[in-house]
């Protein structure tokens, strides 16, 4: 019993804070609500601290429903960093749109708890509850500017596609339970490996689960919601949604594919490779033609999902540990650079008449030298150019794919990566080499939080680029301990 609660101390802290914020928010005067964001950040810091103290523990809790281990700890830490940066990016933006409410921070915290539960669960029931907690909170977040039609429309689209996708995951899980009789990952995996399950049902279950996850992480052909949702939802929310649920989705996908379906890799590797190639193709080519920066970033995130799926397919091969570690590192790098890129958009729209269009970027290098400089760092990182985090992330990822004997696939990935460099570098070209037709109007709303969030993301991107080994080692340690590689 005490052991059980020990495993979820970080989650308990976040949930308690979320509930307290919900209750005290309506009682506060409007300008007293600023402190609530700091309360959320403080809760995340405390949760991070408790995660740090738990880092050497390894046990399962709640009757084998969740497990605490290095793998979970790594992702919990990543989710907390994402939540903190997302909350720091938000405050001024919400205030300018007259939607600075405690509910926002509660929802971010609850979505974070959902991601943590998803990742730490080793039972399909617990996983499902975590998945839905994350998903429900993010539907509301997408529609948080509820007087803005685009935001509500984004929210509804996200809800309809997300709920539809959830049912597919769920049906797949139900079939897995039906053919094995277990809900525990390990037991399901062992039963499948023993080979006493009807093959056709298993294939249907695998296809349903992959389709459902494809929806959730935004892989082609289930990606249609992503550009609309990112464009319509409030920019700080788009930042959070483009990294948090994706990281959680891949954290679970790695576990699923290795623990449950590891023995069946012959069935799913081909499928994943096909999805990965189409995803990279659509993501990279569609990003080229976008004039709206949020849509461009959405398609770019689809392309990144494609690279990550490449490594998932490599994890079906012999060198699974290296592939999975490269995914974990990639997710950390991707989270920082994408949060940062969206964060700069938040900064610009807070401080000027910036409308998230590509043409608005013209002349930004002179008008907002700091913002332009930081955006340059994030764009270089997204394009995968050293000395940034994105370079090492891509390097390890493609190296893992080559090691898995899929060198041709790594070539394809590198090719698309080259295409994608074009639209990232175009942003930089617009900022420094184009004359604006008319300058943006400044409105001078400074925010310490926002600058801090951007600074954290930028420093993180550069640190991971110059000195990636601690994070990479942590990822590899995690896999050694957990998945038994």
């Amino acid at each position, binding site marked *: 019993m005490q052991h059980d609660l020990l495993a979820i101390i970080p989650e308990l802290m976040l949930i308690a804070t979320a509930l307290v914020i919900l209750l005290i928010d309506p009682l506060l005067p409007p300008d007293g609500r600023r402190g609530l964001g700091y309360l959320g950040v403080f809760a995340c810091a405390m949760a991070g601290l408790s995660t740090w103290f738990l880092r050497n523990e390894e046990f399962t809790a709640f009757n084998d429903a969740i497990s605490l281990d290095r793998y979970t700890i790594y992702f919990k830490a990543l989710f907390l960093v994402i939540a903190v940066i997302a909350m720091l990016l938000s405050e001024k933006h919400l205030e300018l749109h007259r939607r600075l409410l405690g509910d926002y921070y509660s929802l971010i915290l609850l979505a974070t708890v959902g991601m943590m539960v998803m990742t730490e669960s080793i039972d399909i029931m617990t996983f499902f509850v975590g998945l839905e907690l994350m998903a429900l909170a993010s539907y509301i977040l997408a529609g948080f500017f509820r007087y803005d039609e685009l935001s509500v429309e984004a929210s509804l689209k996200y809800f309809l596609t997300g709920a539809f996708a959830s049912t597919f995951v769920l049906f797949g899980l139900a079939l897995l339970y039906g053919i094995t*009789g*277990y809900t525990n990952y390990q037991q399901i995996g062992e039963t499948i490996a023993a080979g006493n399950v009807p093959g056709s049902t298993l294939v249907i279950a695998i296809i349903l689960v992959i389709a459902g996850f494809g929806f959730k992480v935004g892989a082609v052909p289930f990606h249609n919601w992503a550009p609309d949702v990112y464009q319509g939802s409030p920019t700080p929310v788009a930042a959070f949604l483009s990294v948090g649920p994706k990281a959680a989705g891949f954290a679970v996908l790695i576990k699923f594919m290795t623990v449950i379906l590891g023995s069946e890799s012959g069935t799913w590797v081909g499928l994943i490779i096909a999805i990965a190639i189409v995803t990279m193709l659509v993501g990279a080519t569609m990003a080229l033609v976008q004039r709206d920066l949020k849509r461009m970033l959405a398609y770019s995130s689809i392309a990144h999902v494609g690279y990550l799926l490449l490594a998932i397919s490599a994890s079906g091969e012999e060198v699974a540990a290296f592939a999975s570690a490269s995914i974990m590192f990639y997710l950390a790098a991707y989270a920082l650079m994408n949060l940062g890129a969206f964060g700069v958009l938040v900064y610009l729209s807070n401080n000027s008449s910036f409308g998230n269009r590509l043409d608005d970027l013209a002349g930004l290098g002179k008008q907002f030298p700091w913002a332009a400089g930081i955006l340059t760092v994030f764009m270089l990182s997204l394009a995968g150019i050293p000395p940034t985090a994105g370079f090492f992330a891509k390097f390890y990822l493609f190296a893992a794919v080559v090691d898995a004997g899929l060198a041709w696939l790594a070539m394809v990935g590198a090719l698309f990566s080259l295409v994608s460099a074009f639209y990232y570098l175009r942003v930089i070209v617009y900022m420094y080499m184009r004359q604006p037709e008319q300058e943006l109007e400044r409105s001078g709303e400074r925010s310490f939080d926002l600058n801090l969030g951007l600074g954290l993301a930028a420093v993180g991107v550069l640190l991971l680029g110059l000195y990636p080994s601690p994070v990479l080692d942590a990822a590899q340690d995690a896999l050694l301990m957990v998945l038994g590689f």
Partner: protein
Amino acid sequence: MTPLQHYLFLAVALFSIGAWGVLARRNIILVIMCIELMLNGINIALIAFSNYSLDGAGRGQVFVFFIFAVAAAEVAIGLAITIALYRLRERMSVDELHEMKG
């Protein structure tokens, strides 16, 4: 006793009707109802599996409870978002969701 296949046939039928409805229906409320129908198909499958399962611990039935609760929360949020949209636009069709394209 009824064979497992009969229950599964019902479950798959409900799931497919629901899925078809989600794709074919234009009214948002009906789409949400169709998603519920899919979830109920899954519930039937889970209960049937649980009844015929090898370990007999009834885990499938416990799962159904969680799906109930989650489905209720999902519907509440879906309807709330629909109401928010309705207040802005006075319409309730998925065809209205076309402000963003590209």
